[in-house]
């Protein structure tokens, strides 16, 4: 079981968390201004990298808060977690 560092509560076991998909996909401010392709990308296009992945997690059975994490998809290791709204940290693979 992974140990996930919640930015608010500290390290907690994986079963307390729920996964929230890829991070840094902001909902467009004015959806009507998006063409169909852009909205389709927003809905469905995801990066699925082999390596560092920025993703959303929620400490569902703890503080209930969403946060972002950089996780390595090969080693399954959490490299860093950070609060919603903070920019993606620069980390070398």
């Amino acid at each position, binding site marked *: *079981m992974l140990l996930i560092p919640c930015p608010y509560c500290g390290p907690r076991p994986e079963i307390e968390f*729920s996964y*929230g998909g890829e991070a840094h996909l902001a*909902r467009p401010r004015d*959806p*009507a201004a998006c063409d169909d392709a852009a909205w*389709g990308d927003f809905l469905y296009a995801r990066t699925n990298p082999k390596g560092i992945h920025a993703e959303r997690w929620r400490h569902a059975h703890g503080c209930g808060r969403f946060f972002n994490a950089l996780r390595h998809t090969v080693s*399954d290791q959490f490299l860093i977690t950070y609060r919603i*709204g903070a920019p993606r940290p620069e980390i070398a693979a």
Partner: protein
Amino acid sequence: MRAAFRMPAGGRIARGETLSFRFDGRIYTGHPGDTLASALLAHGVHLLGRSFKYHRPRGVLAAGSEEPNALVEIDRGGGRRTPNLRATEVALYDGLVARSQNRAPALSFDLGRINDFFAPLLSAGFYYKTFMWPRRAWRMLYEPLIRRAAGLGRAPEAPDPDRYANRFGHCDVLIVGGGPAGLMAALAASAGEARVVLVDEQAACGGSLLDETTATIAGQPAPVWLAETLATLNARATVRLLRCATAFGYYAENFIAIAERVTEHLADPDPGLPRERLWQMRAREVVLATGATERPLVFPGNDRPGVMLAGAARTYLNRYAVRPGRRAVIVTACDSAYQAASDLAAAGVEVALIADLRDTLPAVASDLAARGIRVAAGMTVLGTQGGLRVRSVAVAPARGGASVRLACDLVLMSGGWTPAIHLFSQSRGQVRFAADLGAFIPDRSVQRERSAGACRGLLDLAETLADGARAGAAAARAAGFPVPDLPRPAVAGAITPAGFHLGLCPRAAATRAFVDFQNDVTAKDIARAAQEGFHAIEHVKRYTTTGMATDQGKTSNLNALALVAAATGRAIPEVGLTSFRPPYTPVTFGTLAGLSRGALFDPVRTTPIHPWAEARGAVFEDVGAWRRARYFPRSDEDMHAAIARECRATREALGLLDASTLGKIEVVGPDAAEFLERFYVNALRKLGIGRCRYGLALGENGFVRDDGVIGRLAPDRFHVTTTTGGATATLDRMEDYLQTEWPDLHVWLTSTTEHWAVLAVQGPQARAALAPLITDIDLAPAAFPPMSVRVGHILGVATRLFRVSFTGELGFEINVPADYAGAVWEAVAARVAACGGAVYGTEAMHVLRAEKGYAIIGQETDGTVTPGDLGLDWTIGKGKTDFIGKRALALPDLRRPGRKQLVGLLTTDPALVLEEGAQIIAGPNPSPGSTALGHVTSAYPSATLGRSIALGLVAAGRQRLGARLYAQTPGGVAEVDLVSPVFFDPAGRRIDG
């Protein structure tokens, strides 16, 4: 029966107490401290079981958890029958009942032995080759026969009556293995404040030190040093010793699974104790001190009872005071066997010969020669002879020359030692092949872990102790606890087990030369697999099943690798190593399941009305985690009659439904209205206080996700309901948007699903029924119109009263705090009965809403349905510039003509109820490959309409109204007419009461 092979003195057994036990019906005796294996060997019993495939007689090979042969069934009575336990690990207690396995009719005379004579037919992969034809015979004949003849033990038949516990543990340093390295690691790691846990699979800590009689540590005999060390550790409050506990799995982030056997070794355990306890231990730092396992030599007949690992013989002699035989021949490639020979000779066992496979004898050989023991270098072993016990062994010079048969009742062998890297490998650590050891050792750690002692190839006792101290101190420091270096203890009188041999012995035949004892895999099987083109070790493993038995190849893996390497002309590292997977030793299902059995396996949610419904004989159904009353049959009613009566009563007079499972969310804050305006398709910002609106929530992809009723109680307070199944997901989605997309909105969400119980009172008599119970809310139509909410009291209990309907009738939903719901329900139910109404369940609820064409999200929808598909475009707020899903509704595919739309379906046969999911097709004989037009989503017999009704999604359904289509049924196609989904009261007048 006299224990003729028990020494008069010595050993770690409590001779003062005699225990009696049964093996295959015969009564034997032993002492506390014995294992089943040692107690049987004390009586000269070596034959303990029959092998998996060939039913060959098998004895005790080893003395610990690596034992592949001596598997027994232990029966503790009352359904407590456990198969496949290793006799070498079963602690003896008074009254123990053990049985051998895989034999018929008796262990000494086994008809299955005939498999051994057909061995050429049953070689590697035989089941892929031999039983191929005819096809039918496999299922009818071959498989049942093979299953009866092969296999390990019998599964217990009765439900497991024992209790199992589960515990989460945390520590700074976890040490796995209580041998010399582990004990030193614990001493060093616990010198400061660190919380240290030491796990050992045996009942007594000490590992190899438990067998030690000659070595001294720090000037003391090893047993004295061991006792003092354990006393020191026990006295430290920060140290926890877990005995009879196997660390069987190493998972991510230093998460270790440990199975602790709590009562298994006790004759009369406290019934309050669990049988086993699963520890889920999270450690800051881990020290693996898992030791090493001795390897057998591979030669014909190396599996005969009386053929044993040299180190195991030493264990039985020194730890259990048991002579494993009278006349021994020792074949070895490793110096440690000389220690065994020395101890056996001193105990009066005749050592006929030490045949060393190596060309040069080790220095220790001269000591034994000086005591009159024959020692020969450059030898090999060609086979053993005997029936149920070894009678003689054939040895010969390795480079050619005549062989000699030596009479003996004990053959001890040592092919060297294999570091136990299982847990290290499970931790994803990288291993490397150490050519000087002939084994794989840990190379690079991935987790916060370090190996110490024999499990990383340090077989010398002094080095092992020093390595343990180093690793323990390093672990404590890495966990943030400063500790001093321990002085390196001086060691004397120990033999370092140098030397090894891998693969088949020189000149020995490969037939019946066993590599994997438990799965009956021989050197010949492996050679044949290589011949047939299986070169990758993972393929050889699966084809021959070597290493795939319950012992996971602890004694066999390296010999198998060496044989593959030899057969394919490669070096062992090129052949590779198979993966080690949890569990290290078998774990009972009970331990893994813990308390999650019976009612706790999948806990059920019930409403406050549940006891009332149960007392009235309601029939329940599971709806997600909820258990809901489906219908309330009277004594003479079947399900259909009960539902028909409940529906009629509701339409004609009154119905009462427990709707407490509805999801409820309290949405509060200055921006609550703005938030709901964005979350739902409806116009909610200007919703009046005391007013309600049907709310439809979409995903960003434009498809319907949930619906409910939104009631405004105050400018900044809304009572929002969701579907029963969508409650959690809707709250989560609301939280998601508030936290991540719109953090500027000041809104607070609280789940009130379990706070409010909901009584749905529906039917023409609803107002009349409730009026006497509610004094502070005006129920008059003008004062309390449809889709409004009032706050007041019912029977003095605070209520939020909604005028909403999911039946099309005049309806109220009474929300009361759950703690008062039982009492309110009783009073309302009495009123309903007095008005000629009935309590109804979920099935009638479904029928009543279907008669009105109300869609259930999750029943009519499947995640690809838009509001327009459901005919709910009217719910979308006009002039709203944005809401979740709005942009997607403008995507071409969501506006495509011909999308499936919600329609009503009437079968031409009014008695026919379609099946939910049935396909709707254009003609009665669809051509192959043609596409269905849609499918049935709901179908019921309707008492109100006197016929069956159905809802469905059909392509361009609203344009096809009036058309005749066809539906698939189990009896062929049925004609259906497409109609409006509103079957009853299309004008919607009844809702006004």
